[in-house]
């Protein structure tokens, strides 16, 4: 089981001939992911470490029966790449690229939504399902052990930090989803909770949030309505000042909205165990599971 990515996932790497594309296509292959094709307009007919390269996703999908896509193309072309993946019905479409214009994000997310396709990201490390040995992303695979906790996070390395801590504590992960660090992303925490709820393998949730927006508050409201799995959360940016963008385009306190305090309050109010430090996450999980 797990969500979004499993053993049946067959991945196209869009932008496979770039440095990032090549590096991570190889890393995904090494981890076990079924990377069945790559695309790079103008480079069709070549291959990258044995992965056949096509000019278009259309050809790649047709030839290799692909089901999902991961996008490494530069920001100015990423929206086009995502629309291309969507047009071929690939699902999910994982957009690793950062610095996409928000206008492009809105358009891509909307089109995907209309066609029932899940966009992960942009500006995400991707998704990983350790048991299936499938990652569609750039995370270090060895950090994630298989298990029953669904992990969702708005950040990358902080996720690895927490996953590593869980692994050390003997707690495994069903699927870890990098939601992406941008203000507008394809999958919100609430939508992620809905996915995990339907997954029989997932027995608890870790939600790693950060300042900016009110996605965590909305997730809390959803949890409060009767979400039936235990949830542990960590919110980064308790000490971040207002009005400053903390690395992620989405990590900014605007006026009085988006503070860590408000998020923590809402989550605790919904019965979520909120860790003060990343290392507390495994302890809280053990208490709840």
């Amino acid at each position, binding site marked *: 089981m797990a969500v979004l990515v499993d053993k049946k996932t067959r991945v196209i790497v869009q932008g496979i001939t770039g440095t990032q594309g090549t590096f991570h296509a190889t890393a995904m292959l090494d981890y076990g992911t079924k990377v069945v094709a790559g695309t790079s307009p103008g480079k069709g007919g070549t291959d990258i470490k044995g992965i056949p390269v096509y000019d278009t996703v259309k050809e790649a999908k047709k030839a290799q029966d692909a089901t999902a896509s991961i996008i490494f193309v530069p920001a100015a072309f990423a929206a086009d790449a995502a629309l291309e993946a969507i047009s071929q019905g690939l699902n999910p479409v994982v957009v690793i690229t950062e610095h996409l214009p928000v206008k492009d994000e809105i358009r891509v997310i909307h089109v995907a939504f209309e066609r029932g396709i899940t966009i992960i990201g942009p500006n995400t490390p991707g998704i990983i399902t350790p048991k299936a040995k499938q990652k569609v992303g750039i995370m270090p695979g060895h950090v994630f052990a298989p298990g029953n906790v669904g992990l969702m996070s708005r950040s990358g390395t902080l996720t690895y930090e927490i996953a590593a801590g869980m692994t050390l504590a003997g707690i495994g992960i069903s699927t870890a989803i990098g939601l992406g660090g941008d203000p507008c992303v394809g999958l919100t925490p609430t939508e992620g909770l809905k996915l995990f709820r339907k997954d029989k393998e997932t027995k608890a949730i870790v939600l790693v949030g950060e300042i900016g927006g009110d996605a965590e508050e909305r997730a809390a409201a959803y949890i409060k309505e009767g979400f039936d799995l235990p949830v542990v959360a960590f919110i980064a940016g308790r000490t971040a000042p207002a009005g400053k*963008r903390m690395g992620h385009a989405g990590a900014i306190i605007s006026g009085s909205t988006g503070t860590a305090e408000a998020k923590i309050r809402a989550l605790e109010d919904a019965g979520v165990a909120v860790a003060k430090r990343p290392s507390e996450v495994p302890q809280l999980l053990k208490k709840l599971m």
Partner: protein
Amino acid sequence: MKLYEMEAKEIFRSFNITTPAGYAAKTPEEARKRATEIGKPVAVKAQVLAGKRGKAGGIKFADTPDQAEAAARDILGMRISDLPVEAVLVEEKLDIQQEIYIGITVDRNERKYVVIGSAAGGMSIEELAVKSPEKIVKMYVDPMLGFQSYEAQEMAVAMGFPSKMVRSVAGFILGLWNVADAYDAELTEINPLILTKDGRLLAADARLNIDDSALYRHKKLIDGIKRKPAEQNERERLAAEHDMAYVELDGNIACICNGAGLTMATLDAVALHGGNASTFLDLGGGADAERVKKGIEIALMYPNVRAILVNIMGGITRCDEVAKGVVAARQERGVSIPMVIRMVGTNEKQGQEILSSAGIPFLKTMEEAAERVVQLTKEVA
């Protein structure tokens, strides 16, 4: 990228948004000249990328060119929110009957642009939301169709304007949408849109923040306004140049990490142990020794820094490269303040060896590292 009021107004005018007659001035003498040209009482307004300039004394009214010159002299010497005022906008003073708010921003949850309006303007939208939430009208923009003229009219009606004002108010709303759409606005506002006693509507203030990720689509604009995209100090400029996320804070511990979330969490950990960060510095993914060294150098340029905490979760980033960078920074720059390094992950062992042979302390968890750096800072102080 935030635009100055005067820059935003120029764009607004090109979208048929009426603004008061006005001109920028960089000297008191120029302000006098402009006031003379306008030939009416004027407002002299600080051009600065910060809110609340009114409360900070950045807006003064002048009945005569003499007064305008004096006002400009006052304002041009000011710093508002720690930013110097390098120009003023000298503008016809308006006889206010009503102040209206209209703004457009991105709604994260809907993942759509949202147009916001209120017939009770003149304060920030946050204040409006507190003081008269019932007067705020919101309309989401269809991601495919954009915002239509009729929607602007519906909005004007919903804001409570009488029939005879529907078209004119809608014209401003639609104009603002056209600005937002054409310039990838993250936020654009007319606040206040003023209805004068003689029945004219004018955009008295103008705000336009362009999505930084979309700046590549607006080279013409940026070239046209002939300045750097943002108000940055030397360190911020340098970090941006090297594509590192860099934010200065009130404390004295520079946190250099890989990943925005990890950096924020590191700041938080420092605070939990009683310390205060001076610096948020995210090296990004896959930093090599050179980049680590550069990051440390930039952090050290900020005089507040009393200690450095490097916290790396190795994935694509290799710990040996980080260690090399740290050692190089320390040796080449002769860093005298305490440094605490925490690294795990890829090539952790190799990294540890490099640090050990250079005599730099190395810790395995971020909590230990945070605790240690806070301790060291206190010892130094």
